[in-house]
């Protein structure tokens, strides 16, 4: 469904992505992990067409995404830090997004209700706390029932309750067979969310395998332990 082939990108002298190759298919829910500045966000932004790669190509449903925009109808993206126009209200933002997507599908308003955002529709984005902004980002990512969910640090800044709500939502979407890509530094919360693991370092993908395989290879029984085991071996290598 998403096919990335020999993707490279550099910002000035800094090579952020080096010859990245990756395929994501339905029913795959992967965690994208790696140290800070390893190119995770750049990879995500390349899939979204916000960053234009220097070489290589990305295919979505078999079509190259360069200069295309329609394919983004199928992607729900939750940014690491949501930037919104400051003097717009929550209701306004959601309204505009609905107009832009103009989706005929039924809207998925689960998170809207779970986060009780309707009570805050008149609040301006400027006045919101970081956590509430994250709730808006999450709601927008899931609202149009997309086939692909890209979540950049989804639970960072959320309170435990909201974090739990979001995790349950991710699990529910995973069971529907969607492609989910999560980046996170909080390994302990990834346990039930993912079935695959991608490890990036210095702009390269060093590991890309199903979680069961990872568990067996490392001899650990939970995702978080397996990942920390990998992190230790990778960083010492």
């Amino acid at each position, binding site marked *: 469904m998403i096919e990335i082939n020999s993707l490279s990108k550099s910002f000035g002298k800094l090579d952020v992505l080096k010859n990245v190759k990756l395929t994501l298919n339905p029913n795959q829910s992967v965690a994208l992990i790696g140290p800070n500045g390893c190119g995770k966000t750049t990879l995500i932004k390349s899939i*979204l067409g*916000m*960053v234009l790669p220097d070489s290589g190509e990305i295919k979505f449903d078999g079509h190259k995404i360069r200069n295309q925009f329609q394919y983004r109808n199928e992607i729900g993206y939750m940014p690491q830090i949501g*930037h919104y126009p400051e*003097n717009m209200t929550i209701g306004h933002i959601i309204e505009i997004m609905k*107009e832009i997507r103009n989706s005929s599908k039924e809207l998925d308003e689960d998170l809207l209700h779970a986060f009780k955002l309707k009570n805050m529709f008149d609040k301006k984005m400027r006045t919101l706390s970081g956590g509430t902004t994250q709730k808006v980002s999450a709601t927008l990512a899931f609202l149009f029932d997309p086939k692909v969910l890209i979540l950049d640090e989804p639970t960072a800044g959320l309170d435990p309750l909201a974090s739990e709500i979001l995790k349950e939502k991710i699990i529910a979407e995973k069971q529907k067979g969607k492609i989910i890509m999560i980046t996170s530094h909080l390994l302990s919360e990834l346990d039930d969310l993912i079935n695959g693991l991608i490890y990036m370092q210095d702009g390269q993908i060093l590991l890309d395998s199903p979680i069961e395989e990872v568990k067996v290879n490392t001899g650990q029984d939970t995702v978080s332990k397996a990942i920390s085991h990998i992190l230790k071996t990778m960083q010492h290598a």
Partner: protein
Amino acid sequence: MLRILKYVIRDILNNKIVIAYALLLAVLSWSMFSLEDSSSKGVLSLLNIILLNVPLVSVIFSTIYIYNSGEFIELLLSQPIKRSKIWSSFYLGLCISLIVAFLIGAGIPILVYSPDSTGLMMIVVGVLITAIFVSLAFFSAVFTRDKAKGIGFAIMLWLFFALLFDGLVLFLLFQFADYPIEKAMVGITALSPIDLSRIMVLLHLDVSAMLGYTGAIFKEFFGTLTGMIVTFSLLGLWVLLPFWFSLWRFKKMDL
């Protein structure tokens, strides 16, 4: 496209600066016309004020607005919308708002006091100058992500066209006073949209008779139909080229 355009215009109106701009133009225009005893003098005074203020407000307000909308543009980019549509919607939104403000603020008094070809020319020129300087604002905003640099560049553009360019032309005139440079001067004025506009309006006024020999040459060129067509095409290019260049850059930008 219409959806974003609608949002941009609503956001600009909420901002109230555009309303203040329309009020400022209205105060200036009404007082200019009531201070001067003949409407032709009023047009002349107003022309200079418009050619100074309209570009200034257009270029600076637009540049700041684009930078402040960076976050919204980023959000839109992750949605299924074409990049060129986002950029053009912002351009049209800014242009329409500022042009409407100009028409309400200056257009109405001009039509009341000087309802002739001169007045009409003033209005056309004001609209074009607005579109040109919004276009130049997009040009400067796309160059750098550094807000201070971008706004600084926009101010430099305004300074150059509104003040420095005239100084340069005068300097050339004095330096080459002994040579027949009248025709060359016609060519040089094409390089500044503000000067082009000024000449277009001046030639419609009786004062152009006082411009002397150079004025006669100007009238001979700009006064004819060909001259008019050339001038308006040049002003059209001033609208299109900076914006077209900024669009080309925006399409290739990483956000």
